[in-house]
């Protein structure tokens, strides 16, 4: 019967799809404990050597630290800017609103390569900045603000403006309205924005490659290490650690978000 076959066909497709999606990712932890520098089957034996090697690789640890620093500051700065822009766009009758939003969204469409080149020319040749982690962060902020703004606009549009007016009416100053009503209600979207900007910055390669000076971020460092096969298992070990770290982070964020109280009336929790 067609109607009975259909769910199982769909199920098979779903399973295949998930394998396609996550299979390669799961190979990472697998080979990170394999006792061989070559990434091929069959597996040789179990070892924690690569993790030890990873922790002793100062260059890699430094690159990791650099990436974490950049990603953390980018997520905070981009989310702050995104929130301010989203608030302006959703709460005030801005003349030329569509144009304004369009300009902020532009980095989503412009190829990163063009963006990176343009930024390099501007920062280095015209403004005369030394390339550093600061310049990388600046480029990433530009890349992340559109994401943050999109997430926050949908949340701000989703909740009743009367709530802010009610707070104002009950004696709050504009700042108090923000702290007592707007931020608590937008909180889930802020968490998503922070997470998204963090990951977007953390694994960004092109802009980081163009704009970093002597101390590169992790993706730039890893790419440079691909030439040395003996270093590869260490990179896999690091990759596995990051994988575990991000799973924990996302789970935590989800728990925090759910405890932060779903806003039933406001529709979707996160855009």
């Amino acid at each position, binding site marked *: 019967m067609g109607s009975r076959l259909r769910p199982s066909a769909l199920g098979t497709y779903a399973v295949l799809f998930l394998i396609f999606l996550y299979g390669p990712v799961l190979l990472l932890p697998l080979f990170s404990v394999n006792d061989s520098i070559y990434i091929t089957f069959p597996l040789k034996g179990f070892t924690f050597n690569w993790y030890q090697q990873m922790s002793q690789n100062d260059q890699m640890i430094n690159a990791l630290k650099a990436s974490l620093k950049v990603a953390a500051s980018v997520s905070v700065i981009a989310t702050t800017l995104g929130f301010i822009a989203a608030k302006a766009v959703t709460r005030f009758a801005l003349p030329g609103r569509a144009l304004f939003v369009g300009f902020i969204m532009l980095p989503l469409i412009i190829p990163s390569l063009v963006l990176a080149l343009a930024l390099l020319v501007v920062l280095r040749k015209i403004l005369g900045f030394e390339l550093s982690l600061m310049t990388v962060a600046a480029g990433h902020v530009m890349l992340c603000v559109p994401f943050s703004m999109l997430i926050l606009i949908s949340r701000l549009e989703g909740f*009743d403006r*009367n709530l802010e*007016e009610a707070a*104002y*009416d*009950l*004696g709050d100053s504009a700042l108090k309205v923000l702290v007592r009503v707007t931020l*608590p209600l937008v909180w889930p979207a802020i968490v998503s924005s922070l997470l998204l900007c963090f990951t977007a910055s953390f694994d960004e390669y092109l802009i980081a490659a163009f704009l970093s000076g002597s101390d590169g971020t992790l993706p730039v460092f890893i790419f440079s290490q691909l030439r040395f096969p003996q270093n590869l298992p260490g990179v896999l070990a690091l990759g596995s650690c990051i994988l575990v770290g991000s799973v924990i982070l996302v789970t935590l964020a989800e728990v925090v978000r759910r405890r932060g*109280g779903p806003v*039933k009336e406001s529709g979707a929790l996160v855009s």
Partner: protein
Amino acid sequence: MTAQDGFIYIKSVSKLFGSLRAVDDISFTIREGEFFSLLGPSGCGKTTLLRMLAGFEYPTEGEIYIDGQPMSGVAPNSRATNMVFQNYAIFPHLDVRQNIAYGLRNRQMTKAAIDDAVDKALHLIKMPSYGHRKPHQLSGGQRQRVALARALVCQPKVLLLDEPLGALDKKLREEMQLELRQLQQSVGITFVFVTHDQEEALTMSDRIAVMSKGRVLQIDTAQQLYEEPNCREVAGFIGSMNFIDGRLLSTSHGDHVVDAGPFGQLRVTAKEGQVLHGNVTIAVRPEKITLSETPFPSSQENVVKGRLAARAYLGDRNHYYVETVHNLVPMAVARQNMIREGQVDHLVGKDIWLSWSPTSAVLLNAASS
């Protein structure tokens, strides 16, 4: 009434949104402790006027005085007004107690004083055990009460209500109407109530301003509005009304005599101080008309002959639709169902006579347009 009597004085106020005149040169006053309603169809400017009282909008022209103080440049958070929003605007991240205490936390009050005030407010809205519920655990009526308590606990000089009963079902709405009225009388605060529901306005208000297209048509008590509308628009908006156009012929013995074309001459009791032009409209309420299967004996009453076209059964009363000679619009006649039987279905299609006394009708100037 002079400006001094007015607790709220709205002086030549207009509000423009672009080129749209949402509120068009309105002036009137509201007395202290009054339950005052702004009544009109959607888009008539009543909500805009209310939002100007709250301070969310500022008048483009004119000035609003509350308790003698001009309000221009005074933000909502420093006005002695509080608002109950149409959708209640209960803070979803706070429980009932925190919602009610919200405004009090902006004042120099000890925690004990706030707790005390919140307890009293919860008692007032008959929800003493609901303090720690979250808003999504409340019914529509309960949210409405919490919104009311949250505003009243701030002891405003004026409470502004923006169609607060609109989202409730009919039965609950009628209960809340009564409750709201009693509450207003017990706290003695001036209420300004916006609604498009005429029944609601008539039941609750001391006075009602009927608005249309940004203007105020008439401000009066419920009874005055119903019995003595000052223009065709008010007469048609409140309740149902039969209109007969005609020309004013003469006035004798306190009665206006109107040439109503095919209806012949009809009489309407003159109202003191009313200025009438040549073209007039007679307005008669359906329940003021008497029906008869046989011709009335000649009398002072106005009599019209017609044919019973249809009957609508409304439970407590019947509406009869009567086609009159040369009259395209059937006249409506309402009759209370005092006894269970007494249906007159057999009369449908037959000739019938209508009659009303000159005192029951109102004479209005015909629409000038």
